[in-house]
Structures are given as structure tokens and as C-alpha cells.
């Protein structure tokens, strides 16, 4: 997996800050004639919790889906740690990444979806152990122990044997968080993970995420409309509009004294 450094001169290497974990470099994404991301550059430092905010259709979900390799960029490169997600190095040249390379790099990334997407045919425990066993090669016992610890963490230690359909939305989403964490990813992607939930179930899920944000060093990239939650966990907030970062800063700065007119309009609409 590790890139051969002696051949790296020919590879366009953006100025790298040692702790940078994610870098988008001139990423373009189009759907038909609709250019959603237009030469987007941005980076996330390792261990930081970054929240993406912005109006509907500004491309927030697209960014997370690009990172999760659910969609492919039309142009540009995406780097995770020392490796390109979109490309791989062969003979010192960058070529589009093959399936195997993508799988390796992607193992560092976990995602929690708006609709949970638990596997309905598997019990809770197996939802969590399936990937650690078959992808990471953990033994069944190791995986189950890890799963039980995570279920305790999300407050569902007693629901190992339930099927997802027997759980509330909030409980399902907490299982989904445990499932993502069981792969020990470096980055956790969260796309509006509470917006499909009944209002009374939102707090439980956000509490779990707060807990994870404050007690682990996992890097989080989070899209949310829960501004108080964003303020609470974020080191950095990125304001998107039409596929560009128009403003970024600490939550204090963005939420209390935004510079950009669009940010002010957006915040006054959602707060």
C-alpha cells in the first residue's frame, strides 16, 4: 500500500501539512450538465471535527459520497492520508485507481447514512461483526467482543439479538454508528444522521456522537442542520454555496460573526 517515495517527484503533490488527512484538489463533479462541484479544494486535518453547512443542493452530500467512493469525481484528486483515493501510483505516474486500491484506502473511512441502511436480514450483532470478520479478518470472537463494547457505548448493549426492524429509528441509527466504528476508521462521515428521526429520538443519537467526538481522536466530517450540535462538536465549520467553500472558521466565528453575506442569510434562515 505504501507509496514508493523515490518515484514521487512526478506526482503532483499539493503542499502537505503533516497532519492533513483529507485533501480535495480541484475536484469537479457533474451530473449531466449540472456542475455540482467546480474545482473544489479543501482539506481536513487529522483528528478534527469539521461540519459542512450550506443551502440545499450546495453539494455537501456529494462531497461525502465522493469520499465514500459511492460516486466518482469527473476531474481532480482526492487524497486520504498518504494515498490517493481516486488514483494510484504506477511507475511514478498517477493512474485512475483500480478496485483493489480503492478498497484498501476506503477501509480508513466509515459512513453513517441518513436512512441508517442497516442490513435487515441480520441481527444487530451480525450487522456490526460482518465487515470486521470478512474484511478485516478478525475472528468471530474478537469481532463480537468489539461489537458488544460498541453497543454498550451507544447504549444498546442489551439489543444484540434484535433485528433492525424491531428497533426504533434512533436505536437503528445508534447501531449504524457502532457498525461504522467497528471498522476503526480514521474518518467518520455523517450525512444528516438525525434528519430521518422523530424529534424525540434526535437527542439520544446526538449525545452518542458528542460522546464519540469528545472521547476519541477520530476525524469527523459532518453534514447537519442541527446548529447547536455543530457548535458543540466542531473544530471547524465550512460554509458551502454552489459547490464552493465560501467561508470557514471556528464555530464561534461562523455562528456569531459570519463575514459573508450568504452565510448570514443561510444562518438566519436555519437558526
Amino acid at each position, binding site marked *: 500500500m505504501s507509496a514508493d517515495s523515490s518515484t514521487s517527484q512526478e506526482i503532483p503533490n499539493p503542499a502537505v501539512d503533516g497532519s492533513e488527512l483529507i485533501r480535495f484538489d480541484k475536484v469537479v463533479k457533474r451530473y449531466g450538465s449540472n456542475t455540482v462541484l467546480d474545482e473544489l479544494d479543501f482539506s481536513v486535518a487529522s483528528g478534527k471535527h469539521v461540519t459542512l453547512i450550506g443551502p440545499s443542493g450546495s453539494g455537501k452530500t456529494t462531497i461525502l459520497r465522493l469520499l465514500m467512493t459511492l460516486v466518482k469525481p469527473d476531474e481532480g484528486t482526492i487524497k486520504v492520508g498518504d494515498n490517493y483515493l481516486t488514483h494510484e501510483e504506477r511507475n511514478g505516474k498517477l493512474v485512475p485507481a483500480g478496485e483493489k486500491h480503492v478498497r484498501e484506502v*476506503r477501509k480508513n473511512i466509515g459512513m453513517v*447514512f441518513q436512512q441508517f*441502511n442497516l*442490513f435487515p436480514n441480520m441481527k444487530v450483532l451480525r450487522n456490526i461483526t*460482518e465487515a470486521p470478520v*470478512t474484511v478485516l479478518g478478525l475472528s468471530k470472537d474478537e469481532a463480537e467482543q468489539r461489537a458488544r463494547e460498541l453497543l454498550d457505548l451507544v447504549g444498546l448493549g442489551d439489543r444484540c439479538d434484535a433485528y433492525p426492524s424491531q428497533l426504533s429509528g434512533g436505536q437503528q441509527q445508534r447501531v449504524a454508528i457502532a*457498525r*461504522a466504528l467497528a471498522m476503526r476508521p480514521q474518518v467518520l462521515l455523517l450525512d444528516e444522521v438525525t434528519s430521518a428521526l422523530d424529534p424525540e429520538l434526535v437527542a439520544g443519537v446526538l449525545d452518542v456522537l458528542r460522546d464519540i467526538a469528545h472521547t476519541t481522536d477520530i476525524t469527523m466530517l459532518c453534514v447537519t442542520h442541527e446548529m447547536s450540535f455543530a457548535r458543540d462538536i466542531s473544530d471547524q465549520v465550512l460554509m458551502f454555496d454552489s459547490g464552493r467553500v465560501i467561508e470557514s472558521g471556528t464555530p464561534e466565528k461562523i455562528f456569531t460573526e459570519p463575514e459573508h453575506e450568504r452565510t448570514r442569510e443561510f444562518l438566519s434562515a436555519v437558526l
Partner: protein
Amino acid sequence: MNWNWSHVDDFMPLFWDGVELTLKALFFGTLIAFSLGLVWAIAQRSEKKWIRWPVTVFTEFIRNTPLLVQLFFLFYVVPEWGPSMSPLTTGIVGLGLHYSTYTSEVYRAGIEGVPDGQWEAATALSLSKRRTWTAVILPQAVRRVIPALGNYVIIMLKESPQMAAIGALDMLGQAQGYSQATFTYEAISVVGVAFIVIAYPASVLLRVLERRLVR
């Protein structure tokens, strides 16, 4: 016309031969149709055009030509340059192959019914292709289509008499032979009842399965 029980008695040995053949053809034909259909359905979702394309052409061709023609082809033409099979084996292969092109459509609908989110979650967890299919997609897809698959068992039962054309005498084939030789109708009636006796419990079972599986 008077009902004559002695014709029924005379017919019985032939009837049981026919029943045996019908059930064999149905059992093995179903096995082939269900497994081959799954292979076609998965192949048609392959990313590789050279897999997808021939499978589509082949299954469309089989589905849109009569079973009878395929049975004749397998029985009279294939042995010219390939294996020659007994009438029963030919019938089983023909029936299974023909209906595999229908069950593949059933599986396909089941697979398409699995929400995109399931594929996406499998990708996000880096599950292998094989694991995504066997652990996530197929268990959900197949569960949904079991009743529809079951319907094809009943259809295959009703179409199995076509095998008589290549000399594999199922229960109807036997009855036809007997009736034409003796100018009587008892044998045909017995077989009619036998079809109901086999098919009706099967449909009931299917309805029960449907209620239990499709939620």
C-alpha cells in the same frame, strides 16, 4: 357415457408410472430453473459487457420460443453433435432451461427491489463483491420473490405434459395413450384430479409462505 371403474383399475399401473415421471421432472426441473435463473440474473448485472450481453440474448431467445421447439431441438438435434439424453433427462433439462429464463426475471425484480442504500452500506463497509451478494443482497431479494418463484413450480407442473412429445410419458401422456387405445375417458379424469391434488396444496403453501415472508 357411464363411468366404468374397471378402466380406472386397468389404468392405475400406467398412472403411477406417469406420476413418478411428472414428479421427477418437476423436482429436477425446478432445481435447474431456480439455480440457473439466479445465475442469469446475477450475470445480467455484471459490469462486464461481454458477460451481460450474451446472457441477455440467450435468455430472451429461450423465453420467446416455445418449450416444445426446445424439447425437439434438445432431443433430435443436439445428439447429432452433442450428448444424447433419455427422454426424461431431455425433458428435465428442457423444462429447467426454459423456466430458468422466467425465474431470472423474477430474481431480477427481487434484486432491483433491494434499496440502493443496502449496496451503499456494503460499499461503505468495504464488503467484497461476493459477500455483498451472498450476505446482503440475495437474502433480501430471494425472500421477497419466493411466492413468485413458487408460481413457476405450478406452471411447470402444468406444462410438464409437453414432454410426452419426445416420448417422456408423464401422467397425462399415459392417460392419453390409454384413452386413445380404449376409447374411454376415465383415465383422463383421474389425471385431471391428480393435477388438482398436486397443484392445490402447493398454491395454499405458497400463500402461507407469502404471508410469512413478504412483510
